[in-house]
């Protein structure tokens, strides 16, 4: 089993850290390149373009008028933050890393770049919502045994999908804690 490139889908910022750390550790151990992919969700931009677009705050429950410009600014800021976090995590571990920003549907864009990767780590709810990709095998978070088996089988691109960052990170850590080499 040889992992040369790992792609991690990055979205909302704070909960990314645990997932990133696990991915960096995996990349370090496997001596693979880590690619952070931030997808600017096209649905959000479409939403913002609507004349009655309102954002209802998570905590405050207040409505805020949204437009495309504001949404783009917001997404740019999130992308920058994601990049900064990737750098802060990968650089001290001496892991080769790069960062990409794509615009479109998150699963589609991820899978579009997945062709030149060995492992794609993606946070998607529900994980089963991923569109089918030829030659790719999807392993759901929480099953480290299956993940290891799939990695050893080396049958094309492997996608690790989960609905929760922490859950995915935990699966990666379980994999890392096993004695067998990657």
């Amino acid at each position, binding site marked *: 089993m040889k992992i040369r490139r790992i792609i991690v889908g990055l979205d909302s910022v704070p909960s990314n850290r645990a997932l990133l750390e696990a991915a960096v550790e995996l990349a370090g151990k496997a001596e693979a390149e880590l690619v952070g992919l931030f997808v600017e969700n*096209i649905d959000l931009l479409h939403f913002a373009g609507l004349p009655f677009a*309102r954002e*209802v*705050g*998570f*905590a*405050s*429950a207040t409505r805020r008028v949204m437009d495309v410009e504001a949404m783009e600014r*917001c997404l740019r800021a999130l992308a920058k933050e994601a990049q900064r976090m990737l750098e802060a995590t990968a650089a001290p571990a001496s892991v080769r890393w790069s960062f990409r920003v794509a615009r479109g549907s998150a699963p589609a864009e991820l899978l579009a770049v997945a062709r030149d990767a060995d492992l794609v780590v993606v946070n998607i709810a529900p994980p089963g919502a991923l569109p089918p990709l030829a030659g790719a095998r999807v392993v759901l978070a929480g099953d480290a045994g299956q993940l290891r088996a799939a990695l050893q089988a080396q049958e094309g691109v492997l996608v690790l999908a989960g609905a929760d960052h922490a859950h995915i990170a935990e699966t990666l850590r379980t994999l890392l804690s096993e004695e067998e080499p990657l």
Partner: protein
Amino acid sequence: MPEPMPRREWECEAQGALPPNARRESVNAAPVTSSRRLTAAEVSRRCDPRGFDFRTTGELEDLPQVLGQERAMHAIQFGIGMAREGYNLFAMGPEGVGRRTIVRRCLEAQAPRRDTPPDWCYVFNFETPHRPRALRLPAGGAAKFRQDMTRLVDDLRVAVPAAFESEEYRARLREIETEFSERQDQATAAIRERAGGKGIALLRTPAGFGFAPMRGNGVMSPDEFHALPEVEQKQFEEAIAVFQEELERVIHETPRWRREAQRKLRELNRQVTRAAVNGLIEELKAEYESLQQVREYLAQVQEDVIDHAELLRQPKDGEPSTFFGLPLPEAGETFLHRYKVNLLIDHAGAGGAPVVYEDHPTHDNLIGHIEHVNQMGTLVTDFTHIKPGAFHRANGGYLILDALKVLSQPFAWEALKRALRAREIHTESLGQTLSLISTVSLQPEPIPLDVKVVLVGQRMLYYLLHAYDPEFGELFKVGVDFEEDLRRGPQSDLFYARMIATLARNEKLLPLDAAAVARVIDYGSRSAGDTEKLSVMMRDLADLLRESDYWAASAGNKEISAGDVQRSIDTRIERSDRICRRYREQIMRGTLLVSTTGERSGQVNGLSMAQLGEFSFGMPHRITARIRLGAGKVVDIEREVALGGPIHSKGVLILSGFIAGRYAPARPLSLAASLVFEQSYGSVEGDSASSAELYALLSALSDTPLRQSLAVTGSVNQHGDVQAIGGVNEKVEGFFDVCRERGLTGAQGVLVPASNVSHLMLRRDVVEAIEAGTFHVYPVATVDEGIEILTGVPAGERDMSGRFPAGTINFMVERRLSEFAERGQPRADVAAKKAGQGRRRR
């Protein structure tokens, strides 16, 4: 012996001033023979070493008791034994008598017989944090309790996080979290589903949610939306507005759900912590079962740990918290600080009550203080910063303090009294008491005080405090009055020798041979200024022995000899007699006019004493009197220029009383006289020169010259009795030194009050001169005796007719005063007449 030039010039000047009828006494004139002179044995009582049956002090046993301080010892024993309130001691007496050493020795002898007092520590007060609790533990128990608490905290640090790491806890935590998130998800999912039914998607935006019309799997683009018929657009907009309101309602519910989840989480945490903590603390509680205070405290700790279990968990991973780049203490560590024990007083290993001497009795050093530490530019404190004072250390025992030091430290005296009165130690910083600082402060729980305070000070302080501080008498009921000297009885020389032997051994000095001991005893008697007493000024005595040891060791001797003792006495004087020598030099050079030969009326040698540091010396002064007709007033020039002290003035006024009473009882005293200490430029105090002044006055009135080879000391009363004065030895020696430098003629001597004879303990060289008949000391009981010695003329007593015999001093004085009275009478009549006319005119 040839006389130095200046003296001769001075003598010419003096002789030139003599009245024409004054008699002169040649330098070689015969000494006064008619009056009694003291023998060598009477002017000094020497200790005879042949009376000792030891060779050196090495053969003598230690003296267990304190010599000459029986009264003080009884007072100390009483004060120590008296356990009632207010029976604190004030040890008074002069410096160097050994008050502190004796008191300390007595207390240290008593201390082991008393119980060791309890230990004290301060702990956090969970109910009122600014009032730290004082815990009392048996001696040695506080240190162990501190260790136990440190171990408990270490155990908690491990046990609590371990409990939170357990699978059980994590499962239950996940359950609570899942319940909360599911509740939230279900609410949004319901909205999402209903919105989806109407072709509307619920989107997660970066900061919340948004609703948008759907097309296929994605969100409708704005262009697609605008392409819709207006009615459809309106429908979407209205439906979205409804869903937005619904979502808002759901979001508003979230905090309640979160609170519920948090409550469940807290309860879970308490359960988990309780299980981990109870075992640890119950074990400690069982150990301290008998100490109710400690048991209560541990119960509070138990509850507090359970309440704050969250803070005891390991700090979260990640960067340490900082404030403007400064590292902040971790919350858990700061929190654990409250379980520390501030060990204030530890009596572990102490065998009995403490005896504490506080050398620097400031307010804070007495009652303790509360320190502050700088935290991010703010001064903060807590119970671990309470520091003990001397009262805490001495609690249950004895505290020795210097009265003067306590009184000279701001607020220390008040703090001392407050603590003794309240029988509690209230530790409070001075800044707080005076409202000088405004920062976080504490009011520690007061500690009960049971201490015996011994103040050591001078008698004057004791009397002043008694007079001016009404509380003093209530708080210091036992006065311990130390003696400066002891009565010299038949056994006292041997006791004194044993005391010297003890002192020498304690100080690790060479032993003294019998002659050296005798010499020290002589010194002791001289220091007491009395042949019938011995000084018990221990510091001075110890210094003499140390210095004698130095000289003996310098000479390579194995024992201290009388010569070594004498050398240390001589070198002491030599080190401090510069002023005395300069003064004598002035006399020798004739700058200060003092005659030691010849005669002159109205002029006499008075004697004064000065004390500079520990060295005192006597010096002759010329006292002169001038008279004329006047209104019965004796003018003291020193007093007129405010150089004379009140006692000196009193002495001079007594002279007027004596003269008027003896010579002019039935007629006005028409005399104007002036008296002065010649060449005296400083203040004069004391009445020891009043007899000399009277002699000068009588000489001037009788026009009879006084022998300048004699000097006079002694005060006089209105009946003409000569009274005792102080410093008689120094005064005699002062005049002797001047005479010796000029050459002893055999006519020179000093008139001393007869009542001072027992105080004479003169220097060896003076005694030798007296033995050789080259110097004399005359004891004088009355002015008549004195004037006869000074003039060689009988004083004269009134005969049956009430008249003095012709040719006597008293006769001449009375005659002169009668003449003045007669001459003064017409003037007085004229003055009275004028005064009467004046009144009539009015």
